[in-house]
């Protein structure tokens, strides 16, 4: 299942990409799994076709999905295509984690809770490499 929030400040397209990446990272979407058609997912979520198409395209560009005629959109890899040097990826990770941690601190979430969330998420993702 995939869930998006209409009232979230995060754009729908980004939510979709993030959810699908999360499912691939957790192994819930494995290589060879076929995703629903753009029309089906857009209808079920009640959102625009272009939003779903754009999310699929972005994941296709990242090397995680492929669209083949007659076979629909299929997961082809659980590892993203390299987008620049490794240090750049680490830099991006550091930046997004810094943002998330800052948000958590401002929201008043304690360090223990943040560490517990981090531990839980790493366990989920690395349990299914």
């Amino acid at each position, binding site marked *: 299942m995939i*869930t998006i929030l209409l009232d979230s400040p995060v754009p729908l397209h980004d939510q979709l990409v993030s*959810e699908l990446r999360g499912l691939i990272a957790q192994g819930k979407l494995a290589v060879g799994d076929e995703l629903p058609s753009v029309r089906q997912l857009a209808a*079920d979520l009640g959102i625009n076709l272009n939003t779903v198409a754009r999310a699929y395209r972005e994941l296709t560009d990242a090397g995680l999905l492929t669209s083949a005629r007659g076979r629909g959109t299929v997961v082809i890899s659980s590892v993203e295509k390299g987008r620049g040097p490794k240090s750049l990826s680490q830099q991006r990770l550091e930046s997004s984690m810094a943002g998330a941690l800052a948000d958590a601190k401002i929201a008043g979430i304690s360090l223990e809770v943040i560490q517990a969330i981090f531990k839980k998420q790493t366990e989920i993702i690395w349990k299914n490499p």
Partner: protein
Amino acid sequence: MPQWTNLIEQLLMVGFAPAMILAPLITVVCLRPNPTEQDHRLRYQILLKQLIIATVLSLLFWAVLFFYGPMLNRKISGAFLTGFLFSPLWIKFAAPAIASNNSIDATNSTSANTGNTTRTASLVNRHRISPIKPWYWTIAISIYLISLLAIGARGLYPFVNIENVTDTSSVGATGQMLFYRWINLLVSYAFIFGVMLAIAPKKIIGASLTEAEPLLPQGCEQLAQAYKERRDWTTLNLFWLLLVMMPATLGLLYGLMVWQPRNDQLVGILGSIGGAVGGILGAWIGILGSRKRSRIEKLKAELGLQNTPQATNGI
């Protein structure tokens, strides 16, 4: 002309009008709409009473015309035409009575998630779990090709004039008229069902499979199962009705028309029976489909009230 066709024709001539007049009332009674809201229930009861009165009056009108009315020609009496009272009875009373079931209204939105800010969907590609097996398509394509071949094969034989015969249902026709009839039927059959077969996987079956099936954020096996039942039921019925029954019936009729041009009476009877059966089946598929949707809406409302939504990302 065989005796039994005359008998069927006479039965149709007598039974058609009362059957059509009674059809709206029978449909409403069979569907038993059960509006939950007081206003809807009151409206339904008024409409049902009006429908009963209008049906009885229409039947009386038919009876008067049947026994005392004029004959429009040797076979069709004025009473036969009262069958067309079906339309006002259906539009004015039966359809609003069925629609007064307020749960049916809720099924008209394209996404039942409308109004919720949390949207959840399954990631299963429904085209891959279609209830239409590959060999079903073989049946549909075979019917099309066999019918086309049967109609087309008539072109191998000469088109000769046929004379008027004593039976009034058979008409005389020149060979040229028969040729034009043959080419017309051949081309229209090839075109109509060729196009239908070409667009069916995406436009007919595809549309049925990709109809919105929003899930609840907390997930629910019961809801997924209800969607599957409705989807399989609708898809299969659409397939058999539009891609098997319709081309088979019309193929048979067109075949008879080109191979047996003297038997217009038989073609007329088969055509009216096939058309009526197809129409009634189509209407029932639509009505029962709406009922299945309304059950899903009820289930969602119940589940939605029982559970507090929370985001999940399981498959």
